[in-house]
């Protein structure tokens, strides 16, 4: 048992975090600032501001609030009614842990933690340790910003333990009165998150708002048609992908995500990327606003996209909800319920039995049982 682990779990740290995360620090940092109001939703068009955010350590509540304030204000000044942040917006707040800068020098999160803390500390332990403080700052910041600007905010996501201590990647959605509209926990974990010991959730939420019916499954969820289909069948019109992809930018890899999902389940799709070099990770992505091909001017399914793949910027786009509703009426998917009833969900379990020691083997036998 290393000393650092004792310390991470100890009273001294939690007292320090509690002190550093007082909501009054957030309120004080934002007091007296200019809060232009977001335009009220009228007519058919809604403007979204997609914040392509850079990931780095932030060491204080005030620093965090100020950073998110600046970006939100820019988006609102440009008329955004819905401001969207990428996955892992809570991760900046690892900076609350003293000495954590060492992590930034590591070649990978696991290695860096092993170097700083010893082999018996897991990545999940570090996130759990910072969570009580990070959560207070995160919630106070985005709630204050939503209320101050009178804007809807999809506030990216933060790693938080539930009451049982299981760590989830949780997205938050705030309304223009500053109240939490709802949360969405990630349902498909990136392989590295599985290794880190995160838990995955099995519910997909949709939120009926004046900006349309909104869903925001997180990052890897958009590699799978299933969660997006579930959101769509519950009425989702704006499907948001808060993403933090720890890989160099690749056009083809990116197009496997939400762009493809809104071709299958016709809706607006919004990819919001975290960028930067952080704790051994290279995070890249080109944020974009997508729609079914037929609804986009160039027929390519792209309404707007970020100029860079590695820098902070705000992408703006207008979503025409009436046009989407018309399109969905005209191009209604024609589902084959008898087919799905025959195979779903049994086929998944049947597949799992075909795996060889948890591995998908391309030469294994065909599943003849269904």
């Amino acid at each position: 048992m290393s000393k650092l682990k004792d310390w991470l779990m100890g009273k001294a740290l939690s007292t320090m975090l509690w002190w550093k995360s007082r909501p009054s620090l957030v309120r004080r940092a934002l007091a007296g600032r200019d809060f232009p109001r977001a335009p009220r939703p009228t007519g058919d068009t809604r403007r979204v501001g997609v914040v392509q955010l850079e990931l780095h350590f932030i060491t204080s509540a005030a620093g965090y609030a100020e950073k998110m304030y600046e970006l939100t204000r820019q988006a609102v000044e440009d008329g955004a009614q819905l401001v969207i942040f990428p996955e892992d917006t809570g991760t900046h707040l690892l900076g609350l842990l003293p000495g954590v800068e060492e992590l930034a020098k590591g070649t990978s999160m696991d290695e860096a933690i092993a170097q700083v803390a010893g082999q018996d500390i897991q990545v999940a332990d570090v996130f759990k340790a910072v969570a009580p403080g990070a959560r207070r700052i995160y919630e106070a910041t985005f709630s204050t910003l939503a209320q101050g600007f009178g804007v809807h905010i999809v506030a990216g996501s933060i790693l938080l333990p539930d009451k049982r201590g299981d760590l989830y990647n949780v997205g938050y959605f705030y309304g223009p009165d500053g109240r939490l509209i709802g949360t969405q926990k990630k349902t498909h974990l990136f392989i590295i998150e599985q290794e880190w010991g995160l838990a995955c959730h099995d519910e997909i939420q949709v939120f009926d708002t004046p900006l349309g019916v909104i869903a925001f499954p997180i990052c890897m969820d958009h590699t799978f048609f299933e969660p997006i289909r579930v959101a769509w069948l519950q009425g989702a019109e704006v499907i948001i992908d808060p993403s933090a992809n720890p890989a160099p930018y690749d056009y083809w890899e990116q197009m496997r995500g939400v762009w493809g999902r809104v071709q299958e389940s016709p809706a607006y799709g919004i990819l919001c990327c975290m960028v930067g070099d952080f704790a051994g990770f290279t995070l890249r992505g080109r944020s974009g606003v997508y729609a079914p091909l037929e609804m986009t001017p160039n027929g390519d399914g792209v309404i707007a996209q970020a100029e860079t793949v590695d820098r902070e910027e705000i992408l703006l786009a207008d979503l025409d909800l009436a046009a989407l509703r018309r399109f969905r009426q005209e191009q209604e998917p024609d589902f084959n319920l008898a087919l799905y009833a025959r195979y779903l969900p049994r086929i998944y379990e049947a597949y799992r039995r075909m795996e060889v020691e948890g591995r998908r083997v391309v030469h294994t036998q065909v599943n003849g049982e269904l």
Partner: protein
Amino acid sequence: MSDQMLERFKAAAIQMRFAWASVPAELEGKAKSLIETAIGQGVELVALPEHCGLALLGILARTHPELCLDEVVSAAGYTNLADCLRSSSPALKSAYEQVFSQLSAQFRVYLAAGTVILPDKGGALYNIAYLFGPEGQVIGTQRQTHLSPMERQWGLSWGDRLMIFETEVGKIGLVVGTDVYYPEVSRILCLRGANVLIHPTCTTAYSQADWMRRLWREIQANQVFGLESALVGGLFEQPCHDKSAIHAPLSMTAGNDGLLAAAETSDSEEVVIAELDFDRLQQAIDEYPIYKVLNYRLYERYFPKIYGLQGDRGERRG
């Protein structure tokens, strides 16, 4: 069938121009020259495009090769395609099976012979894909399971089963036409163990983006090989355009674009050939095991009853 699977072999996706065959031998001759090109390069599995069997309706349009499908149907005295297909069906079925059985036997090749529209005993019409074996035998057929608005209008019905055909050249799933837009189909096929998806297709709306939302998307979602064989030219009033291709997971392809090979044009005949290497496929899956991320509890929670919600929303069709 429990043939030992080859570890690697060459496959061909044939891009064929539509032309009415006033006698079956005309279709046979046309397909033969294309298949011969593939065989010359050592191919073991050949895919032909959607609706290639409809060329045999040319018997009805003997003197008018420029007519489109609707015109042929009405020139032959039918008020709609469904009636035309039902009354032509005995001859159409036997001519289609004979042509492609002969070709597969002649070249000793596995032949996914595109599709033909045929009725069942009750007269319900299906767009059906056939897979022939190297002895000329019918290994199996797959009815299309989803319909486009046009196919509904034609009066087609849909199947409610998805088959896997276990052969020496892979465990083959047939993704027929419109089925490619419904991710449920490829997912079910691949969960059942398919490692080669064959997609006979026919579209008038080709663009790179349109192409990416079809088989390209499914292959990346499910990490198997994909043969996409497109019909080009004039079956409909609007000419068909597309680029046939052989797909694989991104990491297996030179440009990281998911293409092992692709047609150069979207309107002329081409034979697209690539080697399918199952060891490399296994490696690509091991490096990025997408199916490991499947969330069984979520699917059990929602499927299949969530589909029933579609009718509950006012904006949607009940």
